[in-house]
């Protein structure tokens, strides 16, 4: 009702023939919104971070849907498990190291060490490529053992989840392809840049996502 944001006077409660007066007083005084709130007319720097956060929510929901379907299938009788390709351990280590390198680089930039930042960012991107190559090797290992996409539900989910993760990782590598040349050209200066921060957020998310996928595929 219009009275709830309104100064609690009796007159407000009686909407007459000419329309209720409700709301005006309370709204005009605002909920303390003006003028304390920062102006939003120019684009605040955190728009990119916010947009990325929403994108991560959507990607997370995609994998929640994949994995709940997977957990549903696991209840089946006659469930078969694919052999764990040993290279996945190495891949896991590579991706965690990549994430650590990116984060270290971001902090180097913040503390003013531009060269350290460039090297760390390049290392992180390189390890990302190595991870993706490692995933392809894992697929190759399985194919050599005769485990294909359509072999049985577990193999289907393995290829599906690693593939979907890989596609998103590829998107991260595209981001690296954009920011790395800029980093070496000196576009990013201390204390940091939105592009670098958003890319590293995405990258850490993908590392976490990989751990989730790895655990749920083989250890749950």
């Amino acid at each position: 009702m219009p009275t709830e944001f309104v100064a609690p006077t009796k007159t407000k409660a009686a909407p007459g023939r000419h329309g209720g007066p409700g709301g005006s007083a309370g709204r005009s005084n605002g909920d303390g919104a003006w003028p304390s709130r920062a102006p939003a007319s120019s684009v605040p720097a955190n728009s990119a971070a916010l947009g990325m956060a929403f994108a991560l929510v959507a990607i997370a929901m995609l994998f929640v849907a994949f994995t709940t379907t997977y957990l549903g299938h696991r209840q089946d009788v006659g469930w078969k498990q694919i052999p764990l390709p040993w290279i996945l351990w190495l891949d896991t280590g590579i991706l965690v190291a990549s994430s650590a390198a990116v984060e270290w680089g971001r902090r180097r930039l913040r503390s003013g060490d531009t060269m350290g930042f460039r090297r760390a960012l390049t290392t992180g991107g390189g390890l990302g490529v190595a991870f993706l190559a490692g995933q392809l090797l894992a697929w190759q290992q399985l194919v050599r053992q005769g485990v294909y996409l359509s072999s049985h539900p577990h193999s289907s989910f393995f290829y599906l989840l690693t593939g979907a993760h890989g596609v998103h990782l590829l998107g991260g590598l595209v981001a690296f392809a954009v920011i790395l040349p800029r980093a070496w050209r000196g576009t990013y200066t201390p204390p940091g840049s939105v592009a670098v921060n958003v890319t590293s957020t995405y990258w850490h998310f993908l590392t976490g996502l990989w751990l989730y996928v790895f655990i749920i595929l083989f250890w749950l």
Partner: protein
Amino acid sequence: MATATAPATPHEAHAAHPPESFIRHYIFSLDHKMIGKQYYFVTLFMALVGGGLAMLVRAHLAAPEKGILDPGTYLAAATMHGTVMIFFFLTTILTGFFGNFLIPLMIGAGDMAFPFLNMLSFWTFLPSVLILLASFFVPGGPAGNGWTSYAPLSALPQASPGSGLGQTLWLVAIFILMTSSLFGGLNFLTTIINMRARGLSMGRLPLTIWGIFITAILALLSFPVLMSALVMLLLDRTAGTSFFVPAGVLIGGKVVPHAGGEALLWQHLFWFFGHPEVYILILGPMGIVSDVISTFSRKPIFGYTAMVLSMAAIGFLSFLVWGHHMFVSGMNPILGATFTISTMIIAIPSAIKTFNWLTTLWQARIQFSTALLYAVAFVSLFVTGGLSGIFLAASPVDLYFHDTYFVVAHFHFVMASAALFSIFAGTYYWFPKLFGRMMNETLGKIHFVLTFIGIYATFFPMHFLGTHGMSRRLYTPSTYPFLASVQPLDVFISASAFMLGAAQLIFVYNFFASALRGPKAEPNPWHANTLEWTADSPPPHGNWPEPPVVYRWPYDYSVPGAAEDYIPQTVPAAPALAGHAGRAGDGHRGGGS
């Protein structure tokens, strides 16, 4: 380190607004208003496609024994009618047009947070439209498994003609459309959170923006779930996986080479998306209707906070009710009871909204514009459809009504027609901002009367078909003796549907004729309060020369003591009004006089 100049962000580059080439202005536009218009034109075209398909379906059902359509074409027409209307018309126009066009204008921003992403959203939407339309021309025709595409029928290309290449293209088209909608959704959320004008707190947002905001959250959480299901179904169809195909499915006496899938999981994933989806189609309209009703009642919206909270409640509950689409799937009766209860609870926020609309209209000096008529009719349709929803929510009753015309009647009222009416209300209301011209009100009222009568005459009798047991996708009602008595009703429905369809041509004519030759609109023809009416009609690129500053909520209509019966959000409280409206920003509440 070389030159350390940060690159100009798109927004900074955008703010200068240099003269634009034709392509930059009309085709690859970054301006949210042009993108909104692009969405409007494409979705309007898709609405005509979807409406034409409905006419085909009705033509067949008026005289099923004549076989105007063959069974495959009939099922494909019904499937594509639903697909086009839900995905490519309602979802897309409500977010793509209303979201893009209105968000910056109503929150006082120059443009969206990510104009490039906005353009990308339209230019990923368009291929999805083309792929869907292309599926009409492939061997076997378009998808024919219903807009829900239940597996395993949709997972096996050999299962039916409607499950051929058309179904694959359907999956691809919807997947691309979902991607496009997600681009839009995260843009909307970021823009609403970050780009509001000075003084425009969330508690002062117009309800239209609240509706779009909650819609975008629902999209962000539910569209990826459908996308996951689409990917798995596509793999089942093309790569031989068995996510949704159980072992031992026989087609033409032959066992298909699939094993280990669960067909029911498709339904779970689809409806986990599907129920939030139907609220995506109704929450935005609820916001639009609230603003239209308040403006033309010349009264503040009744219960602003209750309106926002009930929208949020409906949005939240939408994730807990998907099972009510699956009561006949053999679910545990206790689970069925749970879904019945969670579904029934939605009646509470829905009723709060309905009563608030009625109370806003109560004792108001209503201005009966075409927009208001559509908004009030929205409330009528929403109530009619909502009441039949209570029947369907009760699992024992639904066991009987499931997949009958009762369901068709229900969702055509509560979701399809209601959303359509809000789109009409919104179009008549915001048309001056779209083209700087007014729509013809006389034609608008004729269109309204015919559409309102047409909707009720078409869909209300479907309740009786449903209670009579007529299945919703039935091709041959004439072969069942128990349906012979309701065949005249089918004829009546078809005649009404043709009248309804023909009446829409009035709207199309009015839309284009008014856009080209309508009388010029002043900036604020309806004397409304929200920010878009402080911009020019139509607003220039960048919307305002100076960003507006907001001093009040959007519903200051008929404030006693004010010179006019409306006070735009940008008006600071003048000393003369201080007794009623208080002084903005000085921290103390202006009490009564």
